[in-house]
């Protein structure tokens, strides 16, 4: 039985910590999906186009699961997405970086690094003290495994079985993305309270260690040179406190453009909804 069955069981401090956790998870998924869908119509084959569209659809679905729980806490959709100032988003910089033009290796490596961390993070909330989180996490775990399978399948082809150029592209993507991937484990607001109240049951530092134990041997098995994690120069902005790269502010302008142009005062609703 979870300690907190719903919003009414939360005091102010618990609520702030839970919100920080939910925003972090939702924003990661949402922004990752925004970058994936930029490949639509450009992916190298029809099948890979469909596969990536499908991965993006899942990530939007997962973002929605966590944004839903924020709505239960009183937020409206426009406050969560369309009108939230870009400097209040707390996703990792890994998911916001502009994809190098035409670089499929970048997206496949990014998916692999992100989804491996995602799996570990979901396992760390299976026993969350907040019941609505527990209710949802099983469904996410069930939908995530084939994302990694898809990315690894491509990385095997590009790096292990590919030619010099494809290998060099994966290596370049790894050098570029790895420091940003480490921001997946950078602390954000209320991190201590998130653990103290049991919303997540593992520390970020433990998650980082587990992640490195999975991704480093795998990438090395493909012949890649993995940067030494403790010697990587930390990126200036982690995303986790709302500080982001310029790429994010451009992306934000793009995906909120239609909302602003149409001058909605609320996201659209269905005919008869709320009747």
């Amino acid at each position: 039985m979870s300690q907190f069955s719903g919003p009414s069981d939360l005091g102010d401090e618990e609520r702030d910590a839970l919100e920080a956790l939910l925003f972090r998870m939702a924003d990661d998924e949402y922004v990752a999906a925004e970058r994936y869908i930029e490949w639509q119509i450009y992916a190298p084959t029809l099948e890979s186009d469909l596969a990536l569209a499908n991965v993006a659809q899942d990530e939007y679905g997962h973002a929605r699961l966590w944004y839903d729980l924020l709505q239960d806490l009183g937020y409206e959709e426009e406050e969560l997405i369309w009108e939230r100032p870009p400097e209040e988003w707390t996703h990792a910089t890994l998911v916001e970086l502009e994809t190098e033009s035409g670089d499929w290796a970048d997206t496949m490596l990014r998916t692999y690094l992100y989804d491996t961390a995602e799996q570990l993070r979901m396992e760390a909330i299976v026993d969350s003290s907040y019941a609505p989180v527990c209710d949802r996490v099983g469904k996410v775990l069930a939908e995530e495994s084939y994302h990694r399978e898809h990315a690894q399948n491509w990385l095997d082809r590009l790096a292990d079985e590919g030619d010099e150029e494809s290998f060099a592209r994966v290596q370049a993507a790894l050098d570029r993305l790895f420091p940003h991937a480490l921001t997946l484990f950078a602390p954000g607001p209320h991190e201590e309270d998130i653990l103290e109240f049991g919303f997540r049951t593992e520390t970020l530092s433990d998650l980082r260690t587990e992640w490195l134990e999975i991704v480093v041997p795998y990438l090395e098995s493909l012949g890649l040179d993995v940067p030494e994690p403790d010697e990587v120069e930390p990126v200036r902005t982690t995303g986790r406190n709302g500080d982001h790269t310029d790429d994010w502010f451009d992306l934000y302008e793009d995906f909120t453009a239609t909302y602003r142009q149409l001058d909605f005062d609320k996201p659209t609703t269905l005919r008869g909804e709320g009747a």
Partner: protein
Amino acid sequence: MSADEFEGSEFESEACAYTDYSSGEAHEQYPKTGESATGVERKVWDALYEVEDPEMPVSIVDLGLIYDVRVVDDVAHVEMTLTYTGCPARDMILNDVRCAALAAGVADAEVTLRYSPPWNVEMVTEDGKRDLREFGLSV
């Protein structure tokens, strides 16, 4: 839900192994069909039977999406799930369900989403499987 969720049950190739939703675990308490419901709750279940999945001619009750129906103080509380989290028809289905419950004659209706236990094809009723087969899916 989309038809390709059922691919795996027909094509057993390695490549599609992960879409084999037919291998999900059966769950003791599901599907829920409101079999023993009476009174207003019976009427709500009957109304929900009339709501079809937006992509396939099968009732959402037979599809196994409804997890609970309770009527308290003339307000219907419906708990349901979706086949997958990225379902683009979520708002449409929730709205259809709410309208159906209202049409059963309650003063108000609330629909809540739940994701435990996670839906799988074993939650489809025998009638639902028959409808899906008629539609051309192998379940």
